[in-house]
């Protein structure tokens, strides 16, 4: 993995964390307190299905990236990192 890719991925992760905190109004979390591999649903951020729909919309709106409507979608929704990797891959298709 190149340094550029790592840096790009880190930037996407930060943007996603910021979106989650601000748009989902996560009162107990800040960008700094969310770990890169923070789990989204059930544990970690403890998001629910209402949040899931909002995240789909946020990703479409801010990155023009869709979440596949299948099992892969479930894997992408596992953590901040899996979400960021999906977004980064779609923004930089040549990097994968």
């Amino acid at each position, binding site marked *: 993995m190149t340094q550029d890719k790592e840096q790009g991925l880190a930037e996407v992760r930060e943007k996603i964390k910021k979106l989650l905190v601000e748009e*989902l*109004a*996560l*009162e107990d979390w800040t960008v700094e307190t969310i770990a890169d591999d923070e789990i*989204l*649903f*059930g544990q970690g951020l403890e*998001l*629910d*299905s*209402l*949040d*899931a*729909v*909002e*995240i*789909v*919309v946020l990703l*479409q709106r801010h990155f023009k990236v*869709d*979440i*596949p*409507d*299948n*099992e892969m*979608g*479930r894997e992408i*929704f596992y953590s901040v990192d899996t979400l960021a990797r999906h977004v980064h891959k779609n923004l930089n298709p040549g990097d994968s």
Partner: protein
Amino acid sequence: MESHPPMTTRADATGRHRKRGNRLGFWFFKATIRLFGLRGAYGLVHLVCLHYLFFDRQSVEATMAYIRRRFPGRGYMARILGVYRILVNQGKSLVDRYYLISGLGTFEYEVQGYDEIKRILKDSDKGLVLLTAHVGNWQVTMNSLGRLDNTVRLLMRPEDNAAVKETLDVYPHGDKVKTISTASFMGGMIECAKALDNGELVSIMGDRIYGADWTTARILGAEARFPHAAFTLAAATERPVVVVLSGKISTKKYSVDLSHIIRTRYTSRKDRQKDIEKWVQEYATILEEYSGEYPYQWYLFHDIWAGAERQAPPPGHGGDGS
């Protein structure tokens, strides 16, 4: 009449849904309409519905749950008659549907609220959430929406898709009506969000729950269960919910009501549950009033009040993303 699925479904004891109606039955009604006209076919419906009244116990019991609350002072025989009237009206609705899609004739529509929807769609390149119910006639409603240029996406269970496709294949606006399956990750919400973003209309049935996400609201004097997917989708995408209801006024005339628009925006994260409950209650109140105008045209072949006294699961519980 089942609104999204063209054939009525009913849940058996295991929760599975069986179809009432089949191709042969539809062919028979179609032939009857050709031979004897609409009124002749309606006459036949009265006989067929006697069969359902005597032998379709599940539907009769579920409909009775509605009739009991709609007409609390009525005795048993009057309530049975009420169930029969509902069965007959549903049969007539099926006849009307085939009359319409067979191109044998058309119906007159009295549409309320059309201009406001047109205005909302004109002001944005995004779509709308249509919240329907098992009231009136789905084809008639779709026909009235056919005047809009937007594609309509029906959110439905996969087992209903094949049946709907059969109808849409011969339906005049079929190319503008497509389906989204609930059997995908997140119950089709991702596709729904995309459709709204593309300026399409997403139609969701509001008076029958299929999954885990539901909320209770008071209707006809008691708490009942309603799905809340339409509202969570609308709130996430910041699009309004248009309640779509229809009723048969006379043999060749329907009323379509699009005038109720519910705006959804969460007041705060911690109050989302309350917000959803408020929106669902608003819908339930609209439905109660509208079905009061057409009391024998609400085809509720399942008991929405059953199990509602239990605490409703919080929104998101059992959700697909969790």
